[in-house]
């Protein structure tokens, strides 16, 4: 008896030995388009207006030099956290708790100011580098704990980095409710001016066009960090070791690479980058330590890293796109829509990877 088929064609998948150049970018973009269509349908189903929502996101994030500057402000911590995730994920080291390292970095930078170690009126050329250094250092140590546990005892880093995030959250709450609370409010006193990263608007007296533009020096630092991580990963021996461990840990071990040391090192760098996200955010935008100053920059950085396929330059592009989504998403109701869109985008992008592994075509029966 002839078998009846549902489809008039069949899907044939052949294993690719190597993906053609540029196909990765193409499938990522295709995945994003599919994700936006699916999200649009879902928004329509729950009674929203998808076209209106998307148009609103574009207008509210890229529509004028003012909002474009705000988008870059939101993109700044995402570049740092995206890089933090990228370097760890490239080695298949799952530092999922970058949000916690971000918080601890913010705490470290605040401590420089709020412990009063520097006399009032210290030059910003001393205060700001110290804050950034403290942010990097405390973030690095926080991730380093998880790295050490992974390297020495093989404790699952996904869980430890996440648990350390919830601990960091409570640590911040302790300081802003307790020792650093300003008049019983859940925030620290405002930092003095020398602890603010310079913004474009600070130069408005010389160049009036810059008035109101809040993009700050942290954005430049983030671009520099992207360049450094790119150089580290693709042009140095250490970067080669990291990539080899990620692609084939067994081969790396036979090649004599000390995997444990690399785990700790990469965790320190990753946590430090996430710490810089927190330090630059409170020094450049919030100007004080407070609870809930991050809308989840660490977690969004995970998605940024995957969209960029762990390429530091791609991280910058993806971070700006998600900066736009976060900026415009604040006004979109219901509040869960940006998280839902992020999840759908991530799903579609990783699902589209199948086209990198297989040549898929349709064949008539």
């Amino acid at each position, binding site marked *: 008896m002839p078998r009846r088929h549902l489809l008039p064609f069949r899907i044939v998948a052949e294993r690719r030995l190597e993906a053609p150049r540029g196909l990765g970018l193409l499938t990522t973009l295709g995945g994003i388009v599919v994700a936006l269509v699916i999200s649009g349908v879902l928004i329509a189903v729950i009674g929203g207006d998808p076209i209106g929502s998307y148009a609103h996101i574009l207008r509210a994030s890229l529509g004028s030099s003012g909002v474009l500057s705000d988008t870059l402000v939101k993109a700044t911590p995402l570049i740092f956290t995206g890089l933090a995730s990228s370097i760890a994920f490239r080695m298949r080291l799952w530092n999922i708790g970058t949000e916690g390292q971000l918080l601890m970095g913010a705490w470290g930078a605040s401590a420089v100011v709020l412990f009063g170690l520097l006399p009032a009126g210290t030059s910003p050329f001393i205060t700001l580098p110290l804050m950034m250094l403290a942010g990097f250092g405390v973030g690095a140590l926080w991730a380093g704990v998880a790295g050490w546990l992974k390297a020495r005892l*093989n404790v*699952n880093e*996904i*869980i430890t980095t996440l648990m350390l995030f919830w601990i960091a959250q409570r640590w911040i709450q*302790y300081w802003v409710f307790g020792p650093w*609370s300003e008049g019983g409010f859940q925030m620290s006193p405002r930092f003095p001016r020398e602890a603010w990263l310079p913004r474009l608007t600070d130069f408005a007296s010389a160049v009036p066009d810059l008035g109101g533009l809040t993009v700050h020096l942290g954005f430049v630092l983030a671009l520099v960090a992207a360049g450094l991580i790119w150089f580290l990963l693709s042009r140095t021996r250490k970067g080669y070791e990291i990539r080899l461990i990620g692609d084939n840990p067994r081969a790396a071990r036979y090649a004599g690479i000390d995997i444990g040391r690399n785990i700790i090192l990469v965790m320190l760098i990753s946590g430090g980058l996430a710490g810089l996200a927190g330090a630059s955010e409170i020094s450049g935008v919030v100007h004080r330590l407070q609870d809930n100053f991050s809308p989840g920059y660490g977690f969004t950085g995970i998605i940024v890293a995957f969209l960029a396929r762990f390429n530091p330059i791609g991280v910058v592009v993806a971070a700006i796109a998600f900066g736009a989504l976060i900026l415009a998403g604040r006004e979109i109701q219901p509040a*869960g829509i940006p998280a839902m869109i992020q999840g759908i985008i991530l799903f579609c992008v*990783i699902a589209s990877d199948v086209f990198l592994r297989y040549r898929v075509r349709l064949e008539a029966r």
Partner: protein
Amino acid sequence: MSLELAVAAGVTAGTVLLFAAIGELFAERAGVINLGVQGMMFVGALVGFRVGLQTGDAWVGILLAMLAGGALALLHGIVSIHLQADQIVSGLALTFLGTGVALVLGEGLASAGSGALLPVYSVPLLSDIPILGPAFFTNQSVLVYVGYLLVPIASFWIFHTRPGLHLRAVGEQPAAADALGINVYRVRYAYVIAGGAFAGLAGATQSLAVVPGWHADKTFIAQGWIAVALVIFGQWKPGRTMIGAYLVAFISRLALDLQAPRDIFGLENPFFYYQPSTFFLNMLPFGLVILVLIVAAREANRKRIGAPAALGLPYVRGERGR
């Protein structure tokens, strides 16, 4: 607050962790990590509460919550089993997606109060046992008793039945299982979906029995991730996983209860409500999870036991495994 009551409250809250962890345990035994537990729990909590409220029947809510969890898990299954995407990434995507979807669908529900509730029972005879009776068998939700029964059943299923043998074979040696005529893909899909259904049940347990109502993004803090950790602590065995679930929930509960009395043994309570120091108390459960993982890791290193050998690896028929 007596110790028995604190344990009883811990067991109630621990049942949420238990269901989620047993679900994850099944999926991981088949070789598939699903890090979307928290997302599936969020959707389960929302569906369970919302359907329970609308139909007035909590059991219908639970059933649909399990179906919703299973459907989300199916998505993870398709992406990670057939499309061979990285299981860790796919699970993370599921967490984002599930949490977002639940928040979108739960918009405005937070003020809806607590709707349909589940009955509580005391077990005759058993509840008369000193200490254990009041802690485990008095005025507990019917779902808590389901949890007591689930653990031995799951254990028997995995270690003493033919389907359980197939399950373990697929998780340890999928190629060998395939050669023996076991359908690796079918087994993996079945247990991933079952795992999702348990996560959905865990969610509905939270919103219908433990903390009735819909509390938006505060419904769960870390429960889904703690469940994943408990599977590791439990060495992929239901019994040990249950002990971990009740222990973590008990300590979390204790951290809350310790903030209530103004003084303890005549001394001023340093953790009295709204003192900044309470935040250190609130760190306890998360610190405990890390500690418990360290203990488990040391034991695993010493005894050379570990995760199912094929955990996290996609199976492609006819290809050599990585």
